[in-house]
């Protein structure tokens, strides 16, 4: 019984942590989408160097654990004179990481638009960038929306790794409550429930937007 009362009592505190988690995720996905759009286009570039660099970026960030990347940004970068506080470090690492995944999503999205549209647009006199901006990317975005939603959900959960550098998001807030109340099981269960609630709501929102765009 003690376990449940302690969980209920600390619930507002955990919700504050959940709010931090949401903010952390939203910032990171924001960075990821911007970065991913450029790198995704770079992956399809005919310029060898850009193509090579973007591919290397994606392969490296997908091929190393996020936990290691977070630790490198927080503990490794000071060696190069770049000092980041825990929160900016977490956003940087999560953003760079999700940028790699989103780049692949964007690349697939661009490739899903028939080549003929690109050629038609260019022959109408639009430049490469105009074609991308007004013709290809808007359509690609609609196609990749479910995949982007997935990425948001994945990142919501992965943001718990930021607890290792002391960002007081949901996971770490839970650890604080556990160290005070010693109610390990019920608090972890409460955290899991809040994570589930967040990802469930996000997936519903994404589905709603998807349907809206399908009819548009």
């Amino acid at each position, binding site marked *: 019984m003690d376990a449940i009362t302690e969980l209920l009592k600390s619930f507002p505190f955990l919700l504050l942590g959940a709010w931090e988690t949401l903010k952390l995720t939203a910032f990171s996905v924001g960075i990821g989408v911007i970065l991913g759009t450029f790198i995704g286009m770079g992956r399809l570039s005919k310029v060898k160097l850009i193509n090579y660099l973007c591919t290397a970026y994606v392969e490296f960030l997908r091929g190393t654990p996020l936990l290691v990347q977070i630790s490198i940004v927080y503990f490794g970068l000071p060696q190069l004179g*770049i000092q980041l506080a825990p929160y900016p470090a977490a956003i940087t690492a999560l953003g760079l990481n999700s940028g790699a995944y989103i780049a692949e999503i964007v690349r697939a999205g661009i490739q899903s638009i028939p080549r003929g549209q690109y050629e038609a647009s260019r022959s109408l006199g639009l430049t490469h960038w105009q074609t991308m901006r007004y013709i290809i990317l808007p359509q690609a975005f609609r196609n990749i929306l479910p995949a982007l939603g997935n990425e948001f959900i994945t990142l919501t959960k992965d943001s718990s790794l930021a607890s290792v550098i002391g960002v007081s998001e949901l996971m770490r807030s839970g650890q604080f409550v556990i160290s005070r109340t010693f109610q390990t099981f019920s608090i972890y269960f409460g955290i899991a429930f809040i994570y589930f609630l967040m990802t469930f709501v996000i997936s519903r929102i994404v589905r709603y937007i998807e349907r809206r765009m399908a009819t548009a």
Partner: protein
Amino acid sequence: MKKFISLLLVGVLLLSISLSFAQSLTEIKKRGKLLVGTEPTFPPFEFVDEKNQVVGFDIDIANELAKRLGVKLEIVNLPFDSLIPALQQGKIDMVIAGMTITEDRAKVVDFSKAYFEANQAIVVRKDGKFEPKKLEELVGKKVAVQLGTTGDLVVSEINGVNVVRFQKFTDAFLELQNGRVDAVILDEAPAKAYVKKFPRFSISAVVGTGETYGIAVKKGNKELLNFVNQTLDILKSSGTYNKLIQKWFE
């Protein structure tokens, strides 16, 4: 593409400007705050209370230090095994985290005088089946500890003990409760607090390891170290130290 590259450059510049972290006394005063690293999951030394504030014995000492410097105290909360790296990388000015002074740690950081004496407690399930009185009796058993703590160091030195390491000592206790380990080793003060709350565990023995807690500063930072030592002396002679002991341990 040029625009993109210049955007990238601006981004890198912004990153490198960021907050200025440093440790010398004048720099701390100029900054107006003392950055103290701790892992607030170690009551009663440091923990987060119901009002979302980091409090505890160590935090009160940190406050005394900041007060005497005439600056504000800023607690940087980090996992315990990240505290020394953070100190080395200049993320924090000092570590006050119930940290035992050990030879290995003293190689990479400078410790103040001891400010607390702590022993290790062996905690077991209260079914009376296994009640070790000495560390040697743990040979051949599974023992859970908190990663990087003295408990970890102490049992890791004994050959034949199967050590399972956790980020949080509460996870170690969950493992004990679930019967997957035979004992948990941790500092006496938090062990007592835990066992008081959960009578299904008991302390089978308190092992005197002669260990003491110290405040860690970056290697070679004599100025800050002297200040910390002087302040600890003042706290002890003025009676403030005893008041804090009463406040948090009795």
